[in-house]
């Protein structure tokens, strides 16, 4: 691809992603902005003042979202990494069924599954709790972890690990010194995916959290479609910020260093 077209493509993506964000930024600083004005007729900081005030509970929700997102990511790694490896590198009876079952949560609407899960969680007394929310977020998150990591392991050669073993590294040190560095770029992407999936959950959090677990999306979604566009815009920017930050960090770490994830690393 010529540099002209490449530049155009990147620019186009930039416009598509950036322009809506720009509108949100303007909205968040607008006090009065009515049709047909191109820009707000009056500017103000009231939306941001509200965001940073205690009564908005944005700070608290941000921490809750972060905590739940991190927990979901770590648990997804714990469950998904061994599963992905097994699926990519080993053949076993019922493998097709397992692969199919893993895809089901992506296909079946989350609300349907969550209703069933809710009943179970009530019995287990973990409804209306952060633990319950973390667990229900795992349903959509784990399949993505497994899908990404299975593709990483599909391009992975265990000969490196075997070499390390015969050179005197036990299983733990082989993982730490050889396996982890090799799969790290892919693992970062998968972790980012699972974090963002948890971050943007609304219905599942609402049902299982029962209004007691307040994540950022719990504050944001009711505001959307309400009359207070400025506040909605400000909170939505807070909502988007970690995602952009994480994406930037991940893209950077992917560009540096060798990648086993074909297509996402630098050619």
């Amino acid at each position, binding site marked *: 691809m010529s540099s002209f077209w490449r530049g155009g493509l990147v620019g186009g993506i930039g416009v598509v992603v950036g322009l809506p964000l720009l509108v949100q930024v303007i909205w968040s600083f607008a006090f009065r902005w009515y049709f047909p004005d191109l820009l707000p007729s009056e500017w103000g900081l009231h939306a941001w003042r509200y965001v940073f005030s205690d009564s908005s509970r944005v700070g608290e929700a941000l921490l809750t979202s972060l905590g739940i997102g991190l927990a979901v990511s770590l648990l997804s790694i714990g469950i998904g990494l061994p599963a992905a490896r097994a699926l990519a590198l080993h053949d076993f009876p019922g493998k097709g069924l397992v692969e199919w079952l893993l895809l089901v949560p992506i296909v079946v609407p989350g609300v349907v599954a969550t209703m069933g899960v809710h009943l179970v969680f009530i019995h287990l007394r973990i409804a209306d709790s952060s633990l319950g929310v973390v667990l229900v977020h795992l349903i959509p998150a784990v399949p993505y972890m497994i899908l990404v990591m299975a593709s990483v392991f599909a391009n992975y*050669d265990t*000969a*490196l690990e*075997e*070499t*390390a*073993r*015969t*050179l*005197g*590294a*036990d299983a733990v*040190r082989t993982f730490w*010194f*050889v396996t982890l*560095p*090799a799969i790290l770029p892919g693992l970062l992407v998968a972790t980012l995916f699972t974090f963002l999936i948890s971050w943007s959950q609304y219905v599942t959090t609402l049902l299982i959290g029962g209004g007691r677990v307040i994540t950022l999306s719990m504050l944001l979604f009711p505001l959307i479609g309400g009359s207070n566009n400025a506040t909605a815009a400000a909170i939505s920017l807070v909502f988007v910020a970690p995602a952009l930050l994480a994406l930037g960090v991940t893209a950077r770490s992917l560009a540096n*260093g*060798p990648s086993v994830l074909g297509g996402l690393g630098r050619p």
Partner: protein
Amino acid sequence: MAAVVLQHLTRRFGNVVAVNDLSLEIAAGEMVALLGPSGCGKSTTLRMIAGLLPPTAGDIRFGDRSVLAVPAEQRGAVLVFQKHLLFPHMTVGENVGFGLRMRGLRQKEIHVRVQEMLELVRLPGFEKRRAHELSGGQQQRVALARGLVVRPAVLLLDEPLANLDANLRLEMRELIRSLQQALKMTAIFVTHDQEEAVMLADRIALLFDGVLQQFDRPRALYECPRSVQVARFFRNENVLRGRKEGERFVCGESHLVVGGAKEHPDGEYLLTVRPEEVRISDSQVENSLWARVRAAVYMGTHTQLLLEVEGQQWRVHGPADGCYPAGSGLWIHLPPQRIWLLPPAV
């Protein structure tokens, strides 16, 4: 004392027997080739010795100690693969020092020994380079250094030269051989290339379908194969079926004198002579057979002749400057001392 002993080693994968009742004794400081076509169980054997794959039956001993219960990381058998040689995220120095680091050596000593070893494999000053900055041959040398630096009980090489081009392969063969002899390292390497095995190994274990065919010095596999299959693997397809009577081998109308005939009792045998030992002659001399030329291919150092001898197809090396039109006849002389008798094939 034998450094590595395999006793009735067997490995099954489901119904497939990959390695079948393999027994070998490898002396300390010896270089042994596991030779055979792909899928003959040679890599499986190597992985079992390394401790990466448990055998279904049999025993593996290093010295007088069974190592079956010893995990790979404590066994001291280092395995060098043909590809994916180096840890990609580490420098050359870190790669070579990996085994020493796992053994808990201090950084200073690791550094000294890594440098020593890099000099031995003729890559001094390469510590800071990364794997992807090296050529295939250099990577192979670093992989070798990484294995040798921990002074393994036995060095295991799985097709170490398969990914290199022809010139580099020759160079690496010599390097591997000289290092192995300089360090008096016990080494086992797997190859499907009989030429490589002959050049490198003190002894060759030839495997077909997981079964040991012959374990002997390279010369013996060439000159004294134990079966037609072994002879054929070493590119000798020249076989005649007949009877040995006294000093003579009788095949149809032909009588041939056989050197060393006393070692065999009279009876049915297969006679074989290596292609390069057969002499072409214009006239009938003693110990000669009439042959018809089917095809002749000029090979540079010799002419490869495809002959029909007593209804059998033979391959024979003739002089490079000869002229052998297809369909013409000629006499081939079999030197009595070069004739080898095989038990009749079942």
